[in-house]
């Protein structure tokens, strides 16, 4: 299972690099609406994946490595999805890189990206500290959907969409 995950990781990192999604100036051109390339790339990726997912659902397919029936949960929106994404989007626009490209940049040997990588680790660590997260995001933001987010358990049980990406 880990070998398969690593293999798809290599493919993903390679494709992000080839598409130059690891170039901060390319991301900047995307976010300033100067270059449609990355929107078209993301959009066509979503179309291909969602068509495939629907075909697999119809065929009641099983996973090749683990043999379990393919499942993916859908999650109801909660406040954490909005607040978290606003915080995320701000960081993305400053660094002009999001987690996939940051990891691939480090692989390509971008010296500066080590700083971003360490920051992402720190940010995830803060989010894993529930008292801190509750202080920043009080109230009912932590709906049932995200109850065990951050422990990895949802993802490990196979409730993959409720887990973290």
């Amino acid at each position, binding site marked *: 299972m880990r070998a398969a995950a690593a293999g798809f990781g290599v493919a993903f990192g390679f494709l992000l690099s080839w598409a130059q999604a690891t170039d901060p100036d390319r*991301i900047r051109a995307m976010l300033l*609406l100067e270059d449609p390339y990355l929107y*078209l790339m993301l959009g066509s990726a979503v179309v291909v994946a969602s068509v*495939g997912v629907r075909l697999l659902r119809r065929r009641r397919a099983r*996973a090749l*490595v683990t043999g379990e029936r393919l499942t993916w949960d859908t999650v109801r929106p909660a406040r954490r999805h909005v607040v978290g994404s606003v915080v995320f989007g701000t960081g993305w626009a400053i660094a002009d890189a999001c987690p996939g490209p940051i990891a691939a940049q480090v692989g*390509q040997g971008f010296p500066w990206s080590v700083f971003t990588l360490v920051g*992402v680790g720190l940010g995830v660590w803060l989010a*894993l500290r529930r008292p801190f997260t509750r202080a920043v995001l009080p109230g009912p933001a932590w709906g049932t959907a995200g109850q065990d987010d951050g422990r990895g358990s949802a993802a490990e049980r196979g409730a993959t969409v409720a887990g973290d990406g």
Partner: protein
Amino acid sequence: MSELLLDRPAWYVAGPLIGLTVLGLLVCINRRLGVVGGFSAVVERLTGRTGELGWRGAFLLGVVGGGLLFALLTGGFGRSGGYGWLSRTLTGDAAVLIGPVLVGAGVLIGFGGKTAGGCTSGNGLSGTAFGSPASYVAFASFMATAIGVSFAIEALL
């Protein structure tokens, strides 16, 4: 080989291949592709929350390896000097600020992505492909924010 890799492929080549990566991970191990989850697995391992890196950590290491493979094939490992608008704006003595700004941006990316249950890959790519309403909301929220903040930075420079 490296000639072909120096130009980015057409979007209708790169996009579907990335879509197939999402599908491949689902078909093989029944999991949702996402990179913040990989960072989380590493942090959980380092802080003793879990005993092993699991598939998510393996995926993240793979992404780093994919970048390395690309750099080796194109002969471009570590060649990049500057870093986007930050190196163009923070010049001279101010260049010492680039590192701290990137760490700070990384903290926002990591905290926000983990809180929202996914980043551009987990929510924007996989979650939307799986038809998860929370991912549509997350995708709309981070795109609108990132575009808005980028225009704000551009206006301030």
